[in-house]
């Protein structure tokens, strides 16, 4: 009894030790970003590094919050990410449902097509996209960025929704059909409410993909007042003359913070959604 208890304790101890090691490895860079942002650039270029921000220097944060371009970058990124999320949710509900409920020739082709669409280098794709959107008069709108981010997130989201719907019994729809409900209504009144965790998962996934986008935002938009965060950060902090570590990390903290907060609340939906979706193709 006693040995069993000790073994259990040891095992638990090992779990915590491993968790602690992993945690410190993965969170140290995050912590370092935070500490760096609280010091001035001249302080940073002095050894030894300050492990704790002794002299708080909020200058970099003041600069960012008082700079109107930065607020514009945030606003644009937020609009793009939300727009892409909404678009991706709808499209993948439709497509996932169709792929789950109807077996037809080429349905495997569609799956394969979706997946392989991701396999072409974005770098080359962007050239073709540029002249195409120029012709459609869509350049320099946030709408193209929404479209681009949604399409990046789509393959995974469609697969996830399909698996999710697969796990929902067809009897529910058959019952609704007997009641005379239209197919669209059935989808939205019966199926969608049951798929909330899956929808949450693809929402978070899409939002993060859109938030992370760099190449599309760099190429398809060039107006300063339509810039999104990643290219905006590159413009401001990877400039010609100097490294501004303090400013860059302060911007990074402000760019990441809203996501972190959201994560603390939404993370469990992500796991739930993926669990229910079975995360397989």
């Amino acid at each position, binding site marked *: 009894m006693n040995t069993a208890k000790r073994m259990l304790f040891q095992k*638990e101890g090992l*779990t915590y030790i491993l968790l602690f090691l*992993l*945690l410190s490895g993965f*969170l140290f*860079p*995050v912590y*370092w*970003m935070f500490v*760096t942002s609280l010091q001035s650039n001249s302080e*940073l270029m*002095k050894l*030894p590094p300050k492990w704790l921000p002794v002299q708080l220097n909020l200058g970099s944060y003041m600069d960012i919050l008082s700079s109107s371009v930065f607020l514009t970058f945030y606003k644009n990124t937020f609009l793009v990410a939300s727009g892409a999320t909404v678009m991706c949710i709808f499209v993948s509900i*439709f*497509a996932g449902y*169709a*792929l789950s409920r*109807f077996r*037809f020739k080429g349905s495997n082709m569609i799956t394969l097509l*979706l*997946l*392989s*669409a*991701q*396999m*072409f*280098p*974005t770098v080359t*794709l962007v*050239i*073709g*996209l540029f002249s195409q959107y120029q012709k459609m008069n869509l350049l320099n*709108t946030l*709408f193209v960025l929404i*479209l681009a981010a949604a*399409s990046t997130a*789509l393959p995974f989201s*469609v697969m996830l929704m399909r698996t999710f719907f697969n796990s929902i019994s067809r009897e529910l729809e058959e019952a609704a059909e007997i009641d005379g409900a239209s197919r669209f209504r059935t989808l939205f009144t019966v199926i969608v409410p049951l798929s909330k965790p899956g929808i949450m998962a693809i929402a978070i996934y899409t939002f*993060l993909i859109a*938030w992370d986008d*760099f190449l599309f935002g760099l190429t398809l938009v060039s107006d300063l007042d339509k810039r999104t965060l*990643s290219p905006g*950060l*590159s413009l401001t*902090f990877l400039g010609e003359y100097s490294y501004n570590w303090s400013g*860059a*990390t302060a911007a*990074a903290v402000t760019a*990441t913070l809203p996501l*972190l907060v959201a994560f603390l609340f939404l*993370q*469990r939906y*992500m*796991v739930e*959604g*993926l*669990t229910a979706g*079975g995360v*397989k*193709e």
Partner: protein
Amino acid sequence: MVARRGQSVEAVLSLIKKQTMDGVKDMSFRLSRQQKNMIFAAVLLLPVFIIMMLTIISPLISAISLSFSDYSLMSPDRSWNSFGNYIELLRSSEFYHSLKITLTYVGTTVVIDLLLGLLMAVLLNRNIRMRRFLRSIFMIPWAIPTIVTALIFLWIYQPDYGVLNYMLTSLGIMDTNISWLQSMDWALAAIIVVAVFRQTPLVCVMLLAGLQNISASLYEAAKIDGASGWKLFLHVTLPLLKPVISSVTLIMIVNNFQMFTLFFTLTNGGPAGSTSSLAILTYETAFSKYELGKGSAIGVIWLALLFVFSVLFTRYMNRNSEH
């Protein structure tokens, strides 16, 4: 003005939808159930097609057609060059060099992602204190945009003032500073570390979801049979996790092939070409040498490679899990 255009696009779309739906209703008495199903499925699949068409398929087609021409930003000649780009590429050592670097990068990154992600997922799936909090905390790196991650590590790796060298030298692990990103021996490894930092959390979430799908009764049954610890993990957990692992692997491979931001920001393909991945080679060919045709050809070869790989991979994984 664009707002109006946006609205008109909306209007047209809804009109099309309405007409299609009306059409479906009108025909409903004539169509068989099977046909109705097909029409409904087609309507549902329409949006995904439109989006893929607009964002991937049509530029892909134009890129493929470009890949057969000498098209360059310096001379806009789009005439057919009878596979010239492909022949040149397949004969150049540059291409194989980049392919090798890409494969090394993707292979190593994905393996480490999976191992660490699995370890993390298993630990976080245990009955531990503050589980929900810990799970959220571990996800943080994933919420940091890639370019920001690159910036942070640029600073951490800084040869003279970066914290990494400071830690390693003051712990006595090394006695001189290493210029991580400017060293031909270390640069690729340094990039892989950054990639792993950002990607492992995503892998962990997916595997965690997979773990939760394994019902506890299976474990109970195995335990009754006398299995424990490692054996339980090897004979119950891993086999059941296989489908998840295989799809996560595929996603990570495809994503990492695309990795451009990290390479471009951290090393720009250097030092002396030691991190010149395919994405960098494509960018350089298209934008520094202005050879858009050849740049597209790299993309086409890359697409073909990945496509064949993923078909084989999926088949292999499916066959194996059927055993």
